[in-house]
């Protein structure tokens, strides 16, 4: 389908890091079923670094591809770097998303950040606000 880039289709067909982490250190959710997209991100943190990451997504092709790509982008990265993740970056690495699908990359960013915040909350750490 010409609707999506090859990269999007690649990640949709073979999503990376799909699944859950039972003993996750941080879990984040974005979206809702009414709108047709829910993303859930599980993080395993070791020494301030993302040791493992998994996702579960209910949504369209670009939502699944965005989750897959976002998990690839943060795997093995220190939390300070994870918090730099932007929806534009996710969309860019996917070789672009159709305009009405850009919200999928926004959800990926939100779910990742919600998972980091959950980790910070659980560990009584201050969630670093993004500097403008």
């Amino acid at each position, binding site marked *: *389908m010409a609707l999506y880039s090859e990269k999007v*289709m690649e990640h*949709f*067909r073979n*999503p990376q890091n*799909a*699944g*859950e982490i039972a003993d996750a250190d941080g879990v984040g*959710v974005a979206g809702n*079923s*009414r*709108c*047709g*997209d*829910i*993303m*859930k991100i599980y993080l395993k943190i070791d020494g301030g670094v993302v040791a493992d990451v998994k*996702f*579960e*997504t*209910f*949504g*369209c*092709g*670009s*939502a*699944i591809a965005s989750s897959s790509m976002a998990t690839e982008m943060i795997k093995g990265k220190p939390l300070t770097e994870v918090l730099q993740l932007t929806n534009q970056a996710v969309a860019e690495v996917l070789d672009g998303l159709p305009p*009405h*699908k850009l919200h999928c990359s926004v959800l990926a960013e939100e779910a990742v950040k919600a998972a980091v915040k959950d980790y910070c909350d659980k560990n009584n750490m201050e969630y670093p606000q993004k500097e403008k």
Partner: protein
Amino acid sequence: MIYADNAATTRMSSTAMEAMLPYMREIFGNPSSLYGAGQKAAEALWSARERIAACIGALPQEIYFTSGGSEADNQAILSAAHSGERKGKKHVISTAFEHHAVLHTLQKLEKEGFTVELLPVHENGMVYPEQVAEAVREDTCLVTIMYANNEIGSVLPVAEIGAVCLERKVPFHTDAVQAVGHLPVHVKEQNIDLLSLSAHKFHGPKGIGALYARRGMALESLIAGGAQERGKRAGTENVAAVMGMAAALEETCREREKNQERLIRLRTRLIEGLSQIPHSILNGDADKRLPGNVNFCFEGIEGESLLLLLDDEGICASSGSACTSGSLAPSHVLLAIGRSHEIAHGSLRLSLDADNTEEEVEQILKIVPKAVERLRNISPLWKEKISGKLRFIL
């Protein structure tokens, strides 16, 4: 490729294509021209009008060629509403699950000060004549209700609705785009005053359709210009497309009953097979539905990703999910029959035609459950339902 999206469009029949060819290079004259080459085209146009009229129980002078179903819907509705307005009548009755060609035209009328009443649709996808009878008022100038729904395939009792309209002296328009060629249509017996049809839904070419308007119905022209179509639709006629439409319609009507029996068998098999998928539901009435239409909702997944997986397996289908429409809301049809947003997002429409085979149906039944399972396996929504954290809706 397994083409199971015949409600979107159909493959043109070779009969239709061959009927068109002579009108591109040999008989290419303008039907409005006086000389022989033009008059030959005019004669062909008239014969096509007669043949199309005969297929739907109309008179040839009651057929107006348009660019397709949408234009016919627009013209029928605006014409009837504006003639009502001249008599001080500005109330229009329709249903909540019409095609957008109807709904958006009605929105236009609302802006002009008309009152539009959309009848609610029952969960089985039906709208009953009693609902129409109750809704008709002194100032009702039009009832416009589709013959068969394009998404969920339910077939409405148009003859009975037409009878109510006849008794109450209100013009009745039906968008029969999904019905013509697939269901029996007889405008006189079914009390239909205005009817829209589209050639590419019955193996004719795209970009051509017709409006049937009973003698005496005032039509207004949407396109100003020459006197084509008795002054009701300007623009040089697309003779080749009209010839293709006439040939396609005659052929599908001739073979309709023979095909119908087989199609219903395939449809029944598909419905049986897909019903085996847990937490799924058939949309639309089980019996009163288009012979080739199957529409399901699968809980916990989203329709567009299902379509992509099916496309990878060579299956062409469609969905009423928001993602496929480019809007944020899922199908207004599924919402109208009471499906929640979440469930409506997980819909799949398969529309079969005479070309589809039993092997294709079996192949679909092999692939769809696997695709649904694959998507459910990565769906957080599904997992919360399976684990009991969320309740199943279906």
